[in-house]
C-alpha cells in the first residue's frame, strides 16, 4: 500500500508448544502499548493475534507469524504447515470446533477462534489447503 513500515517482526511458532502458547501475542501487545496505540485497538490486535497463534499451536506442525505496523494499520500474517481446514465455511461458524478432548481440557474448542478474528479485524483473508497448511491475513486499521 506504499505505507512506511514502522515495525516488522516475524515469530516462529511450534505446534503443540503449549508451554509458550500465547507468548507471541503478549509480546505484540507490549509493543503496541509501548508505541501508544489506542487501547481498544491494542485489544483487537492482541485478540486476533492470540487466536491465530493458538490455532497454529493446536493444529499446525510449525508456523510463522509476521507482524507489521505502519502509520495506519497493523497486519498479522500467519502461515502454517499443517493439516489445513477441511471446511472453511464451518470453521467460520461460531460454536463449530474440531478441537480434541485434550485441547478442550485446556480451555480451547469453543468454536470461536476464527469468528473472534473476523469480528476484531477490518480485513480478514483465509486460505487453506488440505494436508499443506493455512494462511491468514489479518488487518486492523489504527485510526
Amino acid at each position, binding site marked *: 500500500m506504499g505505507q512506511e513500515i514502522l515495525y516488522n517482526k516475524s515469530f516462529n511458532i511450534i505446534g503443540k508448544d503449549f508451554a509458550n*502458547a500465547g507468548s507471541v501475542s*503478549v509480546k505484540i501487545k507490549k509493543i503496541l502499548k509501548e508505541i501508544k496505540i489506542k487501547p481498544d485497538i491494542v485489544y483487537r490486535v*492482541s485478540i486476533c493475534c492470540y*487466536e491465530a497463534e493458538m490455532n497454529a499451536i493446536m493444529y499446525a506442525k510449525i508456523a510463522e507469524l509476521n507482524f507489521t505496523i505502519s502509520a495506519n494499520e497493523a497486519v498479522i500474517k500467519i502461515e502454517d504447515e499443517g493439516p489445513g481446514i477441511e471446511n472453511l465455511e464451518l470453521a467460520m461458524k461460531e460454536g463449530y470446533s474440531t478441537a480434541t478432548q485434550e485441547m478442550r481440557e*485446556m*480451555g*480451547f474448542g*469453543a468454536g*470461536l477462534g476464527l469468528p473472534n478474528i473476523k469480528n476484531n479485524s477490518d480485513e480478514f483473508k483465509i486460505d487453506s489447503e488440505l494436508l499443506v497448511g493455512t494462511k491468514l491475513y489479518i488487518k486492523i486499521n489504527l485510526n
Partner: protein
Amino acid sequence: MELREIVNILECQNHTCQELLLRDIQYCYATDMMSDVLKSCKIGSLLITGLVNQQVIQIAEIMDLKGIIFASGKVPSQEVIDKSKEKNLPLLTTEKQLFDACGILYTFGLRGKEIIQKADDGSGNSI
C-alpha cells in the same frame, strides 16, 4: 468492590501478594473457555473459572484481567502460581462451585457488564 472483600465473601485462599487485593473490581466473567473471554468479557474484569492451567494467565495478560478465582476447590500448580506472581496477577481459590461463586457475587452487586434498565411501560414487565 475491593478484591479483599471478595476474598472474605467467597472464603478464598490468596496465592499471591496481599497488596494486590486492594484492586477495585467492577465486573466479573465466568467461563472455562478461553475464546469466550476474548469474545465477551469486559476488559479489566475478574475471571471466575474452573480451568486451572497457564493459558488462563496468558489470557489475563491479553485482556488486562484484574484477577482470577479458581472455583470448586481447584488448585493451580506452583508453575501457574509463580507465573501469576511474576505478572502481579491476583490468584485466588475458593471451595465454592462456579455457579454458587457467581451467584453470591451477583447478590453483592457485581455484574458481567452494565445492565441497561428498560423504561417502565406500565405493564409491570420492566426489568
